């Protein structure tokens, strides 16, 4: 690193430090969201009314093109071969039979792959999204069992698959760490997330725990998980002159294009990455080895490549959620007041990636306690890089925390909801910041009433229906509100045959969350146009800005960018309107949009239509591009979503089988923009949580570091018969400090669910399972 870089980083660090000191003290009105978004006050528009997905007709007819469904002329098909040792070197490769097999165009290994830069590991720069800091096909080293070590291209997929089966490798194995105990023995280190240690200490939690009249102190374990999006990862890739075209399945289109550009020494605009439809992501649809291998192979053979991972390939190449071992200890007074809250433990990652599983994040703002210790330590294992999976940290962290709260309620003889409400904080217990919006008590009240919580017996094992033991449990879910910097929006108004058409372009991703529909709703409301006259374009790296479908922040990032672009559009239109307009003399912040017109905010009769302004200016189009404001609100308020979750289970007294009979989620996530798609997001998260609670586990062979169940037959996810009708309600109370008053809701759904199930299993049986998944062997 040069002296200049060091100085720059130091300056940025100082700037960051100064911001963090000053932003909390600044008046609200200086902060984005300090003045509520005017759309919050608009009650009778499209926002909040159920709108069917605008892309629905394409999807139900199979017309929505996914990454493996684009075609190029002379396209070849790729198949990968995977290493079978956890660490070492590829000693020999016998590729003669594969090279001679029918239809084979290329066998690429590290011996003949083009020279490429190592992808920048996720988080090492704003655009870096590499899976690890490992070079790809550049040397003979093997870093995990399952690492791709050869790529075959052939005229058809069948020919490629057959040829790949003919490849033979020998290895020089080297010592590896593939057991949890081995990793622990080698030493753990402080987990660091985006440059910040996962460590919080308030007061003296150990002393307070020892002094508390009541306490619980237990270990909770969660296994590895895989996302298992039904669409396997795929890319269709072509080099056209010096341009690289990638049809990909991506949650981060622009960042992926930029990282790939750096790998191949290209300028950012030389990589065009599109991803109009993504067949499920949940954190997994990012940059992994296969896109780079495919692009390298396409470059080497001079033909386009379709690389589609097999289902097994997804498990070998695409990381999942790592395992955790968490201690939660809580000390409390007889009335339930918490004196000490300790949430510590370890997770496993690799020596080469940047993803600790931050399971303490949700605990930071959960409960008032004068003494808090939170810490995540990491152990290192030789395995595929783990990654974020739906609510990384919170999904597994809330299992431990909310199980422990239930155990404390049992210890105190208190109702677990009363215990939670008894410890509601009035400001963030760790940061000290005020909450932007926290209506968790309302969620509990409404949820308990709708679910019939008062029918629960506080004594475990007392309700029985034949051979089924019946029990109820509850838990809190939580996920932070984020808004990442870098989002831009381009709004183009076009006047055609007297009518205004708006195009809103955002470099966002749609994996089924409903983003394209919700963006159209919000843009239509903001522009004062019918939704039919608004077109949303997304999923293309050629669109300005960079937006990630991650951290449940995309809705806010888009919302903020569209606010900024709309402000710029108003200013531009006022300029065009000139002195002959009824709006003459007004400044942009006095003017808003309504009924396809600009109007004075406090005197809507003073107005001029878009069509009139453009017509008089002899323009048929006006276009603006603007970035959203920096997300300073995150330093000014403690911003979170919450849920109150209720579960009823039936546990078979003979077989130990657990069935979820009823589930209800009451959510406090700001204003809900589209109830139809929001309900699906909440339910989807809850169902993934049911899988986590009862069946999901990526089985890792500790002898050799290989994943043993790389298939949808052996990794069980909830199927139709496992999923009851899931009730979802919400407070719908806008957060006054966010765009539209909304929060992103992609991840909150899964949080707390495993604890709600485990707590219900305890209520049904008197058996406390602290080790997920709750399979029948743990209950017999």
């Amino acid at each position, binding site marked *: 690193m040069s002296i200049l870089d060091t100085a720059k980083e130091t300056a940025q660090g100082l700037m960051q430090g100064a911001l963090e000191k000053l932003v909390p003290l600044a008046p609200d009105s200086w902060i984005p969201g300090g003045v509520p978004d005017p759309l919050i006050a608009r009650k009778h528009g499209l926002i909040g009314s159920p709108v069917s997905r605008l892309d629905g007709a394409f999807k139900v007819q199979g017309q929505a*093109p996914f990454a493996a469904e684009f075609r190029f002329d002379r396209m070849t098909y790729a198949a990968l071969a995977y290493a079978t040792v956890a660490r070492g070197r590829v000693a020999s490769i016998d590729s003669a039979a594969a090279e001679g097999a029918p239809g084979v165009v290329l066998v690429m290994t590290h011996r003949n792959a083009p020279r490429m830069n190592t992808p920048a590991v996720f988080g090492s720069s704003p655009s870096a999204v590499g899976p690890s800091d490992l070079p790809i096909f550049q040397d003979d080293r093997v870093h995990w069992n399952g690492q791709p070590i050869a790529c075959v291209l052939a005229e058809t997929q069948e020919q490629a698959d057959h040829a790949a089966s003919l490849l033979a490798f020998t290895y020089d194995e080297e010592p590896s760490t593939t057991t949890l105990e081995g990793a622990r023995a080698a030493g753990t280190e402080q987990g660091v997330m985006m440059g910040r240690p996962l460590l919080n200490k308030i007061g003296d939690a150990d002393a307070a725990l020892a002094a508390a009249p009541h306490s619980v102190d237990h270990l909770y374990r969660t296994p590895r998980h895989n996302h298992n999006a039904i669409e396997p990862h795929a890319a269709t890739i072509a080099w056209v002159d010096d341009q690289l075209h990638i049809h990909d399945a991506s949650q981060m289109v622009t960042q992926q294009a930029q990282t790939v550009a750096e790998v191949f020494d290209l300028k950012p605009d030389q990589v065009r990455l599109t991803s109009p439809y993504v067949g499920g992501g949940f954190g997994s649809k990012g940059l992994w080895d296969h896109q780079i291998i495919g692009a390298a192979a396409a470059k080497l053979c001079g033909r386009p490549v379709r690389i589609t991972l097999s289902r097994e390939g997804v498990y070998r190449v695409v990381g999942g959620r790592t395992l955790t071992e968490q201690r939660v200890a809580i000390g409390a007074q007889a009335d339930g007041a918490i004196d000490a809250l300790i949430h510590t433990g370890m997770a496993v990652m690799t020596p080469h990636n940047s993803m600790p599983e931050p399971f303490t994040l949700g605990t930071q703002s959960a409960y008032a306690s004068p003494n808090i210790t939170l810490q995540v330590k990491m152990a290192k294992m030789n395995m595929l890089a783990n990654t974020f999976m739906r609510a990384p940290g919170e999904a597994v962290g809330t299992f431990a925390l909310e199980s422990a709260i239930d155990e404390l309620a049992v210890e105190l003889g208190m109702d677990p909801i009363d215990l939670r409400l008894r410890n509601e904080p009035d400001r963030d217990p760790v940061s000290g910041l005020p909450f932007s919006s926290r209506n968790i008590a309302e969620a509990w009240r409404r949820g308990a009433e709708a679910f019939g919580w008062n029918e629960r017996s506080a004594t475990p094992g007392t309700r029985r229906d034949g051979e089924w033991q019946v029990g109820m449990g509850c838990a809190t879910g939580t996920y932070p509100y984020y808004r990442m910097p870098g989002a831009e929006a381009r709004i183009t108004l076009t006047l055609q045959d007297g009518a205004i058409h708006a195009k809103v372009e955002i470099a966002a991703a749609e994996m089924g969350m409903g983003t394209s529909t919700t963006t159209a709703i919000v843009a239509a409301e903001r522009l004062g146009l019918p939704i039919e006259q608004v077109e949303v374009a997304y999923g293309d790296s050629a669109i300005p800005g960079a937006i990630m479908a991650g951290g449940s922040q995309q809705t806010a990032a888009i919302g903020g960018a569209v606010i900024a672009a709309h402000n710029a559009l108003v200013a531009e239109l006022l300029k065009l309107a000139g002195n002959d307009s009824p709006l003459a003399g007004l400044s942009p912040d006095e003017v808003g949009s309504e009924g396809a017109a600009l109007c004075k905010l406090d005197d809507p009769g003073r107005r001029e239509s878009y069509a009139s302004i453009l017509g008089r200016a002899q323009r048929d189009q006006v276009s603006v591009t603007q970035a959203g404001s920096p997300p300073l609100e995150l330093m000014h308020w403690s911003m979170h979503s919450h849920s109150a979750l209720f579960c009823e289970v039936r546990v078979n007294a003979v077989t130990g089988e657990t069935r979820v009979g009823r589930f209800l989620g009451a959510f406090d996530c700001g204003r809900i923009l589209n109830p139809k798609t929001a309900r699906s997001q909440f339910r989807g998260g809850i169902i993934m949580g049911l899988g986590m609670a009862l069946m999901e586990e990526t089985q890792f062979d500790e002898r050799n570091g290989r994943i043993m169940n790389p298939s949808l037959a052996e990794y069980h996810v909830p199927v139709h018969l496992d999923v009851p009708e899931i009730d979802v309600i919400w407070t719908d109370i806008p957060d006054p400090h966010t765009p539209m008053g909304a929060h992103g809701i992609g991840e909150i759904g899964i949080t707390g669910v495993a604890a709600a199930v485990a707590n219900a299993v305890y209520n049904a049986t008197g058996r406390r399972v602290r080790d997920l998944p709750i399979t029948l062997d743990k209950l017999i």
Partner: protein
Amino acid sequence: MSLIVNGTSVAPPDDPRVSLLDHLREGLHLTGTKKGCNQGACGACTVLVDGERILSCLALAVQYDGRHITTVEGLAQDDALHPLQAAFIEHDGFQCGYCTPGQICSAIGMAAEVERGVPSHVTADLRADAALTREEIQERMSGNLCRCGAHNGIVAAIQATFVVEAQA
């Protein structure tokens, strides 16, 4: 030798190893039928053969000489969606849309099975007519995985389409 796909006669693949799924997707460019696992575990590749649902990833294309294959692209008639397709939109029976063609084809085949009186694991009385109860739908659709968690919407769409139809 030919297959009849959505009413059109098409040639089989040259390579007998080609699955019906790959022939549809790569040979005929009918990519509505999805590949989720290629080993019969997820149901995304479900198509109808002479009205019966099959997993096209576990079928060799050359086995289907003269058979009528209906894919998701063949369900809409004269630009009007099949009622089940419309119900999937109305009940939000999908999010990402990747398992959706398989869910839809499977549900159509499933409803026909119930119509024919074929029992399932959860059918209590094997002598009575099978009914499209919620539990029967859930059991019979359990071979079609959905990871987005649209199960409630899928079941609601199937009920709205076939249960109402049966009662009418």
